[in-house]
């Protein structure tokens, strides 16, 4: 009886199947497996990042996602004032430029955008918490939002600084992956 040759379970399929979420989950799972000491998972991460069809368009759309997030938070920080909204956008763009440098990779841009967005969310939460509340319950809810925004900002800054520090030490993946190479739009 002839056995059918099967692809390894962690290899990306040629055909489109599954969603962006499942592809994302797979990369996450493989990262966990690699951390648990499965060296073959490292190769699979490379394959999924490079070859999985669902991830490619999403990777291209990540810049768009970052732009949308910045625009949404600029509007929130502006509180309906168009001038304040534009000022928030300008500040965000300046901050992102400072964080990414001249030839950022997609990863650099995503990490910098996460910091920028978390900074804007924190700004809005701080403004809201400073406003007079009609009821202690409202004040407590605003303080909870501010606390969550502080945590999110701290985590984003920590992730950005960690990778910047590693890159300063000239660390880079062995395989050349588009998402980690400079100037991929």
């Amino acid at each position: 009886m002839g056995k059918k040759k099967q692809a390894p379970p962690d290899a990306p399929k040629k055909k489109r199947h599954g969603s962006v979420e499942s592809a994302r989950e797979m990369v996450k799972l493989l990262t966990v497996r690699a951390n648990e000491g499965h060296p073959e998972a490292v190769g699979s991460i490379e394959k999924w990042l490079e070859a999985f069809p669902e991830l490619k368009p999403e990777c291209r759309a990540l810049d768009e996602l970052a732009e949308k997030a910045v625009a949404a938070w600029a509007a929130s920080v502006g509180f309906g004032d168009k001038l304040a909204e534009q000022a928030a956008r300008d500040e965000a763009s300046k901050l992102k430029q400072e964080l990414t440098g001249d030839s950022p990779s997609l990863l650099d841009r995503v990490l910098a955008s996460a910091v920028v967005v978390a900074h804007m969310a924190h700004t809005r939460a701080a403004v809201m918490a400073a406003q007079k509340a009609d009821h202690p319950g409202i004040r407590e809810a605003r303080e909870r939002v501010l606390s969550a925004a502080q945590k999110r900002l701290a985590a984003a800054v920590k992730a950005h600084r960690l990778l910047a520090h590693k890159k300063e030490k000239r660390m880079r993946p062995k395989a050349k992956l588009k998402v980690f190479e400079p100037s991929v739009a």
Partner: protein
Amino acid sequence: MGWDRKLKGPAGGYFYLSVRTPAGVKKVYFGRRTAGHLAAAAVEQRRQARLRVASAIESEKAATADADRLADELAVWADLLSAAWLTLTGHAYHRGEWRKPHG
């Protein structure tokens, strides 16, 4: 808590209030006349105030719901890609920190 209708009592019932004490929850009787109606009105007033606060909190949350969703999505991608980068450069996640094992 509320209007308790007894089988052989008046149709409107008697107003009771549950009060938390160190000994446990106590059911306090206010009756069916003025005291009962005043206690019921006070309870209703407090309920309305709670609803107004909840609605104010909800509308503040709703104002940034879209922006929050986008920020969360971006954070997920940032986590995922940086974890992949760190794994591919030989790092391991251990006790909340990414470290490069020696040797």
